[in-house]
């Protein structure tokens, strides 16, 4: 039996937590949907270059109403702007950045993530017209693949599982998962919790994860074998102020 649902983080707070881990100077692709919020959470002191796979490096925020350009859009087909230092290029150059391992980080949504890093995020396998876009290229080529998602579905089903039921986007491709409850690395030991949201316990996470979880928080006995630098010790920059 699961205990009552902990409050967890809002979508914006998850995005802030992701942004904390994006280093100055990184080249980053943000997936369509929830990952787009990360763009607004990157602090001014970091220069992070955003890539959008339809041919723009140096993507800026949406333009003011009335200044939209139908030929300046992002991968979600919404109007964007350029930042100083931006460049345009065609699709082969854009996907050479992705497939050739030049992008540092991509942040993607997920339907399911398995304990071995398998990702399912493009098809529920039923009804809807199948559409994959650039997801399979991103998970295969980008140096670090982060997932940002609710820990469970709206119906309360865990998204972190032993084995994905939905069609895969890639096998053993995810490095880290950011949810409303925790930051979880994919390790040789499976899901390794490296950070918990305020007020959330390890057992809250374990109860809502359909696979074993291990404790890899700073000070715990387990060794982090992902090769990532240790994350920040305080969970949220906004925590103190909100």
């Amino acid at each position, binding site marked *: 039996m699961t205990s009552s649902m902990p409050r967890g983080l809002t979508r914006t707070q998850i995005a802030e937590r992701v942004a904390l881990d994006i280093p100055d100077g990184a080249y980053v692709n943000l997936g369509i949907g929830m990952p787009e919020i990360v763009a607004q959470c990157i602090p001014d002191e970091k220069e992070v270059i955003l890539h*959008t*796979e*339809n*041919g*723009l490096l140096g993507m800026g925020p949406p333009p003011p109403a009335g200044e939209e*350009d*139908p*030929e*300046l*859009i992002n991968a979600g*087909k919404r109007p964007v702007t350029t930042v100083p230092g931006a460049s*345009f*290029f*065609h*699709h*082969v150059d*854009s*996907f050479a950045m*992705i*497939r050739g391992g030049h992008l540092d980080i991509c942040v993607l949504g997920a339907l399911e993530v398995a304990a071995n890093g398998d990702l399912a995020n493009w098809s529920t396998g039923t009804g*809807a*017209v*199948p*559409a*994959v*876009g*650039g*997801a*399979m*290229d991103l998970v*295969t*080529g980008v140096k670090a693949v982060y997932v940002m998602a609710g820990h469970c579905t709206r119906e309360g089903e865990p998204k972190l599982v032993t084995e994905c039921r939905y*069609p*895969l*986007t*890639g*096998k053993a491709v995810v490095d880290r998962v950011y949810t409303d409850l925790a930051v979880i690395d994919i390790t040789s030991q499976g899901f390794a919790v490296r950070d918990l949201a305020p007020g959330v316990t390890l057992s809250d996470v374990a109860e809502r994860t359909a696979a074993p979880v291990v404790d890899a928080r700073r000070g715990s006995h387990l060794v982090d074998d992902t090769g990532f630098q240790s994350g920040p010790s305080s969970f949220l920059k906004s925590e103190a102020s909100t």
Partner: protein
Amino acid sequence: MIDKRCADAAAAVHDIRDGATVMIGGFGEAGSPTELIDALIEQGASELTVVSNNAGSGTTGLAALIAAGRVSKMVCSYPRSADSEVFAELYRAGRIALELVPQGTLAERIRAAGAGIPAFYTPTAIGTILAQSKPVRRFGDRECLLEHALSGDVALIKAKAADRHGNLIYNKTARNFSPLMAMAADTTVVQASIVAAPGSLDPETVVTPGIFVDRVVREERSPQASSPGVGWL
């Protein structure tokens, strides 16, 4: 003398045949050559295979070509659209075929055709349902899929400016697949906002060299009729 300019869009697409493979540039509506598509609808060719990243949005352009029943197969990465049910309805009814290709593989397959490469290996889509029936080979510690070049009989693309040699520059993210499709089709047709005098395009900034282009049509709906008098475009 080389002069690739055509009188109008109708003249530029008059010889597209039933059953042709037509590559159509654009990502969503950015870079979609709508005047050439309208001319193709008017021209009447059917049983087309269309290669394009998406399968049309709204009710115009590619969506209108599909709605007119002219397309028997789409090759694309993302045929879903928030504002168009045209493709989805035909697909669910089994009246249009779909070859779904990861976006980077789609781009690379088109480039390969344009560069004389018959096939290549890539790790993208390994272990997924899109890898089914494709040969797999291991390179080092990575399994890769064999993907074949994708060529077209015709490419329809949109440029910001062209000259009579077919040299092209594009506008912002409207570039996307067009330079690749120009290389990969037997006949490449361009609709350009500006048709400039030779020498108006800075050779350092030409994106598609004219050798890849066969026909140039000036957009009728474009407000800019000619190139400015001084400086590069």
